[in-house]
Structure formats: structure tokens, C-alpha cells
């Protein structure tokens, strides 16, 4: 997994790239959680994520819940077809914020 973070105003966009599995979830959390905790609205661009397993989905849930707890939000952007399929299998398409 590789990543790029851009910030504009109160929005931090994390562009993730590669495959997100149990081996990289800690790294993903270390990237995303501080941005949420700093009060930013976090956009996760998943266009270049070719694979995500249940560990990756857990990061999305945890991020969503943490942001909601702080009165903010995590928005999923440009989700790749394969990741969207897994999100739908987990029946999370109505729970997570997808734009």
C-alpha cells in the first residue's frame, strides 16, 4: 500500500494505492486517525485500491465511527469496483459516506 495526502482548508484527502489487507491496516490507521483527531474532514480516495479485505473494511468502519464521535465525517471517494463490491457485501453502502 502506498499513499499521498493532500490538504485544502479543513479537508484532508488521503489517496490510497494498492492492496489493503491485515498486513497494512495498522499503517492505514496511523495515517487516517490523526487526521480525524485533528478535526479535519477526511476524504479517502480509493480509486487505486485494487483489493480490500475485512481488515480494510474495519479501518473504514473505525474511521467513520471516530469521525462521527467527534462530530465530523469521513467521505469515501472514487471507490474502485472491487472495493465497492466488498463494501456492499458487508452491507455498509448505506452506513459509510460515499460520494
Amino acid at each position, binding site marked *: 500500500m502506498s499513499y499521498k495526502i493532500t490538504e485544502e482548508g479543513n479537508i484532508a484527502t488521503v489517496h490510497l494505492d494498492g*492492496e489493503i*489487507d*491485515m*498486513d497494512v491496516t495498522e499503517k492505514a490507521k496511523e495515517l487516517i486517525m490523526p487526521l480525524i483527531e485533528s478535526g479535519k474532514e477526511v476524504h479517502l480516495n480509493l480509486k487505486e485500491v485494487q*483489493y480490500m*479485505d*475485512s*481488515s480494510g*473494511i*474495519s*479501518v473504514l*468502519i*473505525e474511521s467513520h*465511527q471516530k469521525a462521527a464521535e467527534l462530530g465530523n465525517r469521513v467521505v469515501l471517494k472514487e471507490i474502485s469496483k*472491487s472495493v465497492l*463490491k*466488498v463494501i456492499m*457485501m*458487508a*452491507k*455498509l453502502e448505506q*452506513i459509510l459516506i460515499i460520494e
Partner: protein
Amino acid sequence: MTFSESKEFKVHSSSLKEIRTFAREVLAKDEILKSTSDDVVLAIAEAAQNIVKHAYNGKETSDNLKVEISYDNNQLKIDLYDKGEPAIPTNIKPRDVDDIKPGGLGTFFIGQIMDEVMFKTAATDWVNHLILIKNY
């Protein structure tokens, strides 16, 4: 087409990518299997992840796990073997998918993708033997 291929991997989260690569390559041998490859690869990887997470509780080990992929008579059979803590099949349940919380989705995904999921008492040197079946 009929085939059976197996490979051993270190019990470690860093092996998951290699397991997916192996599974993708084997499933690419047949057009029908190729069409559901993404789902089946996810199921295999989730089962392997469960071995790392639960059979070994994430502890470092020099043990291997084995993945065997067989296809015969329109039936895909995946056998996963490990030497971790013995699994208690009745304790392995997918969580309620409507209970939104991180974790516990792997077993749910496996159940969604595969037609049959069962543990067999290993009559080999292995401790756990998980069998996943998908009919085509």
C-alpha cells in the same frame, strides 16, 4: 478441467499477498473459475487471515500453513491446513452484519462467497483442516 495444486506459506500477515497471488494464478487456469476469482481469492485470504489471527493469536511462529486448491466435476474445493491452536467449530460464527463494528467480517464474507464451509478432523500432521467448497 480437473486440477489440484497446493503450496505452503509462512504463518504471517505478510504471506497474505503471496496467498492471493497463488490463488489468482491457480483460478486463472479455468475460465469459469476466473469469472469468480476475486470473490474466491477474498474467501481464501480471509480464511488464511483467520489462521494468523486466531489459530496463532497473531504470535510469531516458524510454522507454515498449506493452501490446496482443487477443481473437479464443477466443484471447487479449497483445503487450508495449519498447526495452530485447535479450532472449535461451534465458536466460529459470523457476526451479525447489522451490528456495525470493526472486526468479525471475515467469516461472514467466507459464508457469503462459498457454498459450504466445514472443519475436518485432520488425519495428518496438521492440527486444523478447513474445507471451503463452491459449486459451479
